[in-house]
């Protein structure tokens, strides 16, 4: 048979639907970064002196560092003096309850499908809403407090629970860990803080919803979750931003600590603005996420669905310190048009009988580049450590790329490390078959991609699984096969 020239014509492109801007009076710092700005930030946040010291130490170290260049992405140089490091909606007075939150803000979250009104209990999810540099509302705080769970903005935790913060902040991701983590440590503005006391199973899903609104502003959020002995928590994170022509920086740090027998499940649906179809604009998502499974039998599970951002640089990792600790990483990363993603994980086996599982699904469409980068490291101390890695790539069309960079370092002979990788393409036969069953080409692609991601989606909490599937469909619209 000669050439079969399938041209699934440019399918109706749906625009990024979270791209609106909320007009609010904001309190915004002038662009620029120096010790005075950091001091002003710390004052603004009403922080105790130890925190300012901590920030300045990070800043001074950051000045000596250079951005990492090993990732398979091309980034235009960022001028850190052009960014504003603080922007917050103006609040007239201290808020006593959610009823006092600016209706414009409540409206914004409603539009995004996140009802903050606590009355809407049916949702059964506690939400911390972070808008630019501040947390604007946290729901269900009281109810969680009854069982001893602390769920609040980290800026509040720094004031209210300084001892806990001091004990854990920076112990998983040190200030000098990497360029973006150091920057974040110096200028982080808000994020969520979670503490689950001994023996408590958190009665509801906790979630943070990050929204970048202001232009020319970086978002530097910091999240710290501590699961004390034999506790259990499931945490969800969602992200969106308006459509803007310039790139915006999001450099977050997330630290998780699991003590003996504790379990943390951390799920992300990342839908930052990816830029337009010519590659203009979009968020730079440079994030350091790491968990320390410090206790025996502790377990941390990362699940991420990454569909947004112009560039993603992100490796949620687990340090398996405690004996019998378990680390898991389930990931779907979809890139379309000119998006670039270099994402994966690190599993560091320290304790005996530690186990890790990595399931990574990369989907590339349009002219996008999608890389999996993963490290499995087994230290001498990690007797009988086991790892299983499965890394699948799916290509939609023939102008995109998928790359796999696995790194394996094993110092313990009893370790068992397995790696499987596949790359496939949506075949014309699959598409034609689905169309012959009445599905449009677009629905067919979405169906096949969803099937490809199934192993990851089944790890997501119900509310997120539905959102993630819909998101994949939208993110793929306009991509052509053939």
């Amino acid at each position, binding site marked *: 048979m000669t050439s079969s020239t399938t041209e699934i014509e440019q399918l109706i492109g749906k625009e990024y639907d979270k791209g609106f801007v909320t007009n609010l009076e904001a309190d915004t710092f002038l662009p620029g970064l120096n010790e005075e700005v950091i001091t002003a930030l710390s004052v603004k946040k009403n922080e105790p002196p130890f925190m300012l010291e901590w920030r300045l130490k990070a800043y001074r170290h950051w000045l000596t560092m250079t951005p990492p260049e090993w990732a398979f992405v091309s980034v235009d140089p960022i001028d850190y003096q052009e960014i504003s490091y603080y922007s917050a909606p103006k609040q007239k007075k201290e808020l006593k309850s959610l009823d006092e939150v600016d209706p414009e803000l409540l409206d914004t979250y409603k539009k995004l499908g996140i009802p903050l009104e606590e009355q809407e209990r049916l949702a059964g999810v506690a939400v911390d809403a972070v808008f630019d540099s501040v947390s604007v509302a946290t729901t269900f705080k009281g109810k969680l407090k009854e069982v001893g769970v602390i769920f609040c903005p980290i800026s509040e935790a720094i004031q209210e629970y300084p001892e806990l913060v001091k004990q854990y902040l920076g112990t998983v991701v040190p200030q000098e860990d990497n360029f973006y983590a150091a920057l974040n440590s110096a200028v982080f503005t808000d994020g969520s803080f979670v503490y689950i006391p001994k023996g408590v199973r958190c009665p509801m899903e906790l979630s943070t919803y990050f929204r970048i609104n202001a232009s020319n502003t970086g978002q530097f959020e910091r999240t710290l979750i501590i699961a004390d002995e034999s506790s259990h928590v499931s945490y969800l994170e969602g992200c969106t931003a308006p459509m803007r022509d310039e790139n915006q920086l999001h450099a977050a740090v997330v630290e998780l600590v699991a003590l003996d027998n504790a379990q943390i499940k951390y799920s992300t649906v990342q839908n930052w603005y990816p830029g337009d179809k010519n590659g203009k604009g979009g968020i730079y998502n440079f994030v350091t996420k790491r968990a320390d499974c410090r206790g025996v039998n502790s377990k941390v599970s990362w699940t991420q669905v990454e569909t947004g951002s112009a560039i993603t640089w992100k490796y949620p990792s687990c340090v398996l310190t405690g004996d019998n600790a378990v680390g898991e990483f389930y990931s779907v990363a979809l890139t379309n048009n000119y998006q670039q993603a270099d994402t994966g994980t690190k599993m560091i086996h320290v304790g005996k009988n530690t186990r890790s599982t990595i399931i990574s699904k990369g989907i590339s469409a349009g002219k996008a580049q999608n890389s999996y980068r993963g490290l499995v490291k087994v230290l001498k101390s990690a007797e009988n450590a086991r790892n299983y890695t499965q890394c699948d790539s799916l290509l939609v069309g023939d102008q995109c790329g998928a790359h796999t960079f696995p790194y394996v370092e094993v110092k313990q002979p009893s370790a068992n490390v397995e790696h499987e990788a596949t790359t496939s393409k949506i075949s014309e036969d699959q598409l034609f078959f689905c169309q012959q069953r009445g599905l449009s080409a677009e629905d067919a692609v979405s169906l096949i991609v969803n099937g490809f991601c*199934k192993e990851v989606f089944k790890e997501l909490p119900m509310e997120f699984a539905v959102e993630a599937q819909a998101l994949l469909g939208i993110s793929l619209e306009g991509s052509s096969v053939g």
Partner: protein
Amino acid sequence: MLSIKDLQVNIGDKSILKGISLDINPGEVHAIMGPNGSGKSTLSHVLAGKDGYTITGGSIEIEGQDLAEMAPEKRAREGLFLAFQYPVEIPGVSNIYLLKAALNAVRLHKGLSEVDALDFLTLVKEKIKLLGMDEKFLYRSVNQGFSGGEKKRNEILQMAIMEPKMCILDETDSGLDIDALQIVAAGVNSLRSESRSFLMITHYQRLLDYIVPDVVHVLSDGQIVKTGGPELALELEQKGYGWIGQEA
């Protein structure tokens, strides 16, 4: 139902179908037989709208509507069904999900609402019984790890759910043992009705023992060289395709 007039089809510069004419009335079952390379599969692909073929002359219509102008999914929703010779696998997509998506595509096209989940389950369970399939099939990924016979039965299950008016069976008998063939044939026969037509494409007469056609056509080198009743198939079986070639 289906009207093909002087259909000429190329793949690239190569002429594959060289003027085929065929009329299938509602309720009729036609068989097209022919040796390898005669253009049988090309015909089924062109009718269903697969890419990679160029229609250089003639017309194809379903109930007076020009098929050639319709996208493949539109043809499917209008009631043209192709049971594939090689059904594809779709990892991670459950059979029941595909069946429901297919049925809803047809229903929405007809201006009906999407099927209710409970009604759908009842419908599917009834149909899989018809084909002697286990309910477990519904929850497995589409065709993944299915035996040849299971794949072909699955095609007929999709047909039973979508209730098309024009069914094309492309080499449905290939790769089937006699038991599987009988089950598949029984499934097809149960779907025969006064308003539903069938076009069976096959190399061997074997299938026609179980699904008895009204009309048999012989395709050779892109042309229909002989048309007759079911007895023509038996004659072919005895004498082979060489006989047709000589006579034509």
